[in-house]
């Protein structure tokens, strides 16, 4: 009887000890046993979660452009899953190609994909094994090779390595994950602006046009992107258009001047015309129609095709008369006619 009571007390003590060791005696650090969704991060990291949720990383699975029949076709093209719903980067290894995952695909490039470490802790900027997700200071999280596991599939990181930004040590985070309100104490913004942020795109390039004796010289320059403009190999495009300005005020059709883009891999006869970092490219508008006042337009496109907004039918570039119906305006400049006052 006494021995039985002793065993019971010992067992109770052991239970108490183990429970205290595991939980640390605090409700706050009772993290989930299994990470199954980035929603599990929301309660503690409300601000970060909201930023991420509004980002294109969060939409990498749901983005209609990605799901379109001409692209992943609702991910029936499974080649797209590798980067659009990757396994945790630290599981496959920084610098290695990512692998596709089977679960929570609709969360896209999520908290778990970027932060979960193989030991079950979360990569972060601080060490705190007592917090629910047991953050572990992991400097690799800030390295360009880290972003490169997906983005260097489009050579973006390789392009960056050849720039002055790389020499200064200003990497991906400098532009795409800035400090909140510019304050390092506020941490980095998880919205990660990129090609969907028109303001950022417009800050990367300049457009000037100047009349000379023969016509108009146009200069488009990549002044602030620390990689090619646009960087994405397959889907992004930027087009230059121009049109004469009629005295009557009538809006004449736009004419295509130049396309800046890297072709899809099957477009073997289409040259790559990416505008590399710090590159300026001169183009000419000549001929009788270039003698009067005209305007030049630089647009950015998330898909390379121009489509009829009503029917979805694609246009050949030469058939497009209103590029802004299926693109975003980046810059527009006006050039006076020959002999007109400046």
């Amino acid at each position, binding site marked *: 009887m006494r021995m039985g009571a002793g065993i019971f007390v010992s*067992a109770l003590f*052991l*239970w*108490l*000890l*183990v*429970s*205290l060791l*595991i*939980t640390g*005696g605090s*409700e706050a650090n*009772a993290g989930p046993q*299994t*990470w*199954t*969704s980035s*929603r599990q991060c929301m309660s503690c990291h409300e601000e970060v979660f909201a930023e991420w949720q509004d980002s294109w990383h969060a*939409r990498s*699975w*749901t*983005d*209609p*452009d990605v*799901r*379109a*029949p001409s692209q992943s076709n*609702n991910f029936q093209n*499974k*080649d797209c899953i*590798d*980067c659009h719903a990757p396994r945790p980067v630290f599981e*496959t290894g920084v610098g*290695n*190609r990512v*692998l*596709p*995952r*089977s*679960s*929570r*695909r*609709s*969360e896209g490039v999520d908290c778990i994909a970027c932060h979960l470490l193989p030991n079950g802790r979360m990569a972060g900027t601080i060490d705190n094994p007592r917090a629910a997700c047991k953050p572990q200071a992991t400097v690799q999280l800030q390295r360009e090779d880290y972003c490169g596991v997906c983005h*260097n*599939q489009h050579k973006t990181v390789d392009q960056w390595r050849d720039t002055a930004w790389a020499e200064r040590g200003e990497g991906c985070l400098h532009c795409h994950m800035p400090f909140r309100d510019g304050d390092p104490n506020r941490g980095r913004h998880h919205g990660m602006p990129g090609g969907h942020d028109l303001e950022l795109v417009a800050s990367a390039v300049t457009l000037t046009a100047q009349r000379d004796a023969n016509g108009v010289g146009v200069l488009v320059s990549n002044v602030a992107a620390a990689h090619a403009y646009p960087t994405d190999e397959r889907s992004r495009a930027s087009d230059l258009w121009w049109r004469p300005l009629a005295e009557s005020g009538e809006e004449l059709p736009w004419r295509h001047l130049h396309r800046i883009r890297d072709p899809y*891999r*099957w477009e*073997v*006869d289409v040259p790559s015309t990416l505008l590399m970092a710090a590159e300026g490219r001169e183009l000419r508008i000549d001929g009788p129609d270039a003698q009067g006042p005209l305007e030049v337009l630089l647009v950015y496109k998330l*898909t390379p095709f121009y*489509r009829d*907004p*009503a*029917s*979805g*039918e*694609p246009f050949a570039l030469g058939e497009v008369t209103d590029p802004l119906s299926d693109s975003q305006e980046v810059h527009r400049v006006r050039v006076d006619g020959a002999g007109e006052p400046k």
Partner: protein
Amino acid sequence: MSPRAWTPGLVLLLAACGDGSDPELSPAPELGPVVRERLAELERQLATVEDPPGLEPGRVEEVDGLVTMLASSKGALREVPLEAIREDIGPAAIGRLAEHVADSARETNLRLAAAELLGVLDHPSAAEVLMRQVEQASEPWMRSWCAWYLGDTTQDQVVPRLLRRLRYEKDPATFLWLGRALLNFENYGGLAALEDLATRGEDDNQRRTAAELLQAAADRADFEPSELAGLWASQRAGELPQPTPTLRLRHEIWKLVNELSEEHFQLRGVDDARHVLSNMGPWVAREIAPALGDSDAHVRLHTAQVLERMGPRAVSSGPALLVALADPSLAPAAAEALGRVGHPPAVPALAARTVPGQAHELRVAALRALGRTGLAEGLPSLRAAFQPNTEPTDLCQAAATALVLLDAGDEVAPWLAQQLADPLADGEGAELALETWLWRGSEAERKGFGAALEAWRAAAGPPGVIPSLDQVRERLVQRGQQLNEVLAGLLGT
């Protein structure tokens, strides 16, 4: 401290009282350098094949003369240069013929005659010259003719490259001859392109030629042309004429498996390798299944993906995939592959991976796979896993989608409809599952399903127009509302 915090201690205490047995279902397989060893072995065997001899300087004019003769001959006369190159000069002519073929300044008929002579030589080096033209020639007619001549050789090592070219080819006429060459090597990976051309070709000639090629393949296989694609995509693919792969082709296959390795960073090569391998015949499933035990995790996972994409044609890999379920890093991909290849003994093994305690990633994959098997034996596990109040949402959605595929969609349709309106849920996934449920009900002529499917489809935007995120959200909400209005009627409640 809350009562919940005591739980881990209790669990540990109870576990300590247990027998300590391994909770894994079976031991993880041993891994090794499978790809490296296969490549080394094949390369050792191939090393015995000699390169073609060089052409004696005095015979260059002779080769040129044969090219000219063939280009200008008709009928029986054509046999003279063909026989001379085959019987007299032989492979020594390959280098000179390659110069003719590649020289775009030469007359077209001379280049084509040189290509024909290369084809007649039926030699690995000649095939390489022709294949490079198929891949790189800027003139579509050159690509077409070289594909034609390759198809008349026994050089089956070009099959993977023909399949890759077919992926990127944009010239419809070249499609035809790539498809013909593949069929001649008993590969049916070009069927879809030929069927498309037979119905939607640019002109009568193209449509007729495609139909004739399909008919010829069907005659050889002793089936109807309309049966070929179905057979190729099924477990009966082995009933189609099967090739006997040469060492060279097997070497090419293993080179592609090696492309899947972690050593190759760019996905471009990986995508091509996955595409080509998954369009090969059933023998490749048997050939590459050992790569599921390679020590490179990328090779293992992508091999499982290849088998998954081959689908029922890869049914022979079922046992190897079952073993792979015990490899934690490979198990989810192996489970998904088992679902597609349709290996019936896999159902209990998959079901065992759906229960709490298994890795979440594996549970989701196993649930999805059970639906894809189409086998009703998976229903109990799916029903057990579909617990929206306690299980993660993505797991429930995988179970719900699988239940739809096993014709038990009525049980989950109300929950799936709720997902359409939840901005944090996988609305698009729920939408696809519900459309399948409506379509199946409509096909089965269930009351109200036809009209509901029609209304559902009417809510889609114009085909070809890519909607904005807001438009997608509106569409999901609209479809959810529409469905909720008729759901009770559809379910007969």
